[in-house]
């Protein structure tokens, strides 16, 4: 198929397996976020795609060609490093034109392309500045422009926004996504920020302990996480123990929830339900009764912590939806069946 395919990629450092039989196929033009906690192998996977690390076993295919033995400098890719790795001895323009210089482009060609890219990243007129004189966000853009100078087939970014402050980071996420859509370039971003992944990605690849746990569009990852780890990592969730009785009915916190089925052959599992799906209402009926222990009013949303059966359930709602609830109050918790996801625990 056309695009990038990872086939059984494994990478070991001594006894430690950084990436364990990773399989993934990404069509051209997709924006992929490799997401996971630190040490999960996401950066190692990206570095293998770049050719900066050699896989212990497995193959990397680009448009059906095995590129595993191809050295980095012949892979036609652009990469943005966490440290940005701008060359301190070169000006902004020369940094961006470096890949063209390597390939023997004329001075005029270099200038033309670097001006074009500076325009793309809204930094016209910065060509002659030393990189040391730029702000964090501007350096970020220069690193992106340099990586894109040769219109590469693959665009790789290793935690590109982690050095920026929160506001700038959010703005750059949107900008990066728009840029990628305009250029239609296959992009891989390593991040540990799930919000960043949700903002930018067509495909989110969640990793943990060197394994790819789930690869799916962001909303599917959010709504239908593959397991408890993914559910817990992506956004806030309530993970509750579920039991099944002889009749096959699944109950959570002692309350049977219809239409839920257990995974094949299991008697115990977890149920994940997102805080915004938890409804709070009056005590009685099908509702599970509990006590409000804490209310966090963030202005835009209100998080209500309800203790029931030794577990704390978090419910989120807008101030308009949520009736006045105060700590210590008895409430009824309703878990809508369509919002519950049964997961192997």
């Amino acid at each position: 198929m056309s695009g990038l395919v990872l086939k059984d990629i494994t990478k070991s450092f001594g006894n430690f397996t950084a990436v364990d039989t990773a399989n993934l196929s990404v069509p051209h033009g997709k924006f992929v976020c490799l997401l996971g906690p630190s040490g999960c192998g996401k950066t190692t996977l990206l570095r293998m795609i770049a050719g900066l690390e050699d896989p212990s076993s497995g193959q990397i295919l680009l448009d059906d060609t095995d590129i595993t033995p191809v050295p980095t400098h012949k892979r036609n890719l652009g990469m943005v490093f966490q440290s940005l790795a701008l060359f301190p001895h070169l000006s902004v323009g020369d940094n961006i034109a470096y890949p063209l210089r390597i390939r023997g482009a004329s001075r005029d060609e270099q200038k033309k392309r670097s001006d074009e890219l500076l325009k793309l990243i809204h930094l016209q007129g910065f060509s002659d500045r030393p990189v040391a004189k730029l702000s964090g966000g501007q350096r970020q853009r220069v690193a992106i422009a340099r990586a894109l100078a040769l219109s590469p087939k693959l665009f790789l970014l290793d935690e590109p926004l982690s050095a920026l402050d929160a506001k700038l980071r959010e703005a750059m996420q949107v900008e990066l996504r728009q840029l990628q859509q305009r250029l239609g370039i296959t992009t891989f971003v390593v991040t540990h920020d799930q919000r960043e992944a949700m903002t930018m990605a067509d495909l989110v690849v969640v990793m943990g302990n060197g394994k790819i746990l789930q690869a799916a569009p962001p909303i599917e990852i959010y709504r239908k996480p593959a397991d408890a780890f993914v559910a817990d990592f992506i956004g806030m969730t309530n993970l509750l123990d579920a039991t099944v009785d002889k009749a096959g009915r699944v109950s959570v916190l002692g309350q049977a929830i219809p239409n839920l089925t257990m995974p094949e052959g299991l008697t115990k599992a977890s149920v994940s339900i997102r805080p915004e799906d938890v409804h709070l209402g009056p005590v009685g009926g099908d509702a599970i009764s509990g006590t409000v222990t804490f209310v966090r009013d963030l202005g835009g949303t209100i998080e209500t912590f309800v203790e029931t059966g030794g577990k704390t359930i978090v419910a989120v709602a807008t101030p308009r939806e949520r009736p006045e609830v105060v700590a210590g109050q008895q409430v009824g918790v309703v878990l809508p069946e369509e919002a519950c996801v049964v997961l192997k625990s």
Partner: protein
Amino acid sequence: MKREAPKSLADYSPLFFPGLMLIVFFVVPFSTMIAVSFFQRDPSGFYTPDFVFDNYARFLSLFFAKVLGFSLMLAVTVAICCVVIAFPFTYLLTKRPRKVQTIWLVCLLSVLSLSEVIIGFAWSTLFTRTAGITNLFVAIGLMKEPVALTPSFWAVLTGMVYQALPYTILVLYPALVRLDPTLLEAARTLGASPVRAFMNVVVPALRNTIVATLIMVFVFALGSYLLPQILGRPSHWTLSVLITDQAIYQSNMPFAAAMAVFLVLMSLALVGLTLLVGRRENAL
């Protein structure tokens, strides 16, 4: 935080001790030497205080100009050889595991414990016809018969590079360890082969370190007076050798002092020139 300029005498107190040392062990002897360089030599004794330019005038001859030229050329060659060998070596060393690095550095430090005399005689033995390395070349079939490699210019150069190399590596090591390895990786992702990336990125990023190291080895090599005598012919003797000769064997202190002052001025001028060129290139 803005640092305040020192105001009272007490603020300067940390400088007293090093200042004193510098005066006692550098300013005073060097001033004495400058003074002596203007004295009149007394052939029957030592020298008599005077103010004459005879010593400098004598120095201004083709013979001494050639020696001075050779000394500077030798020191520059040693400096360039050392940096050219040590820079890639140190770079590769920093990529090895920590344990390997430590072993190498300890070995290099142990080379520093050898005196110049021992280094000189070890190399002169290695370069002889009867017991030297050419016998090894003969044994493995590279040469027909053993030859003497000393005395020669190349023997002097080898000995001096050997002596200065550990210093060069130890000066380059901290800067290379601190170099961001992603700079090189970035160059590779942009299409530069590893060697090209090294030349394009690592070398320019460490330009100031390289210039400083060149100057250090240059000054170090300029003062060497034993190795040229042990490993070279009289035509390979440096100004330092002649200064020693005049001062110790000919008892001509004023002339030796004049040569020494001249050598110091020449090397200062050369170092200054290097820094000036460096600054101009930086400004571009």
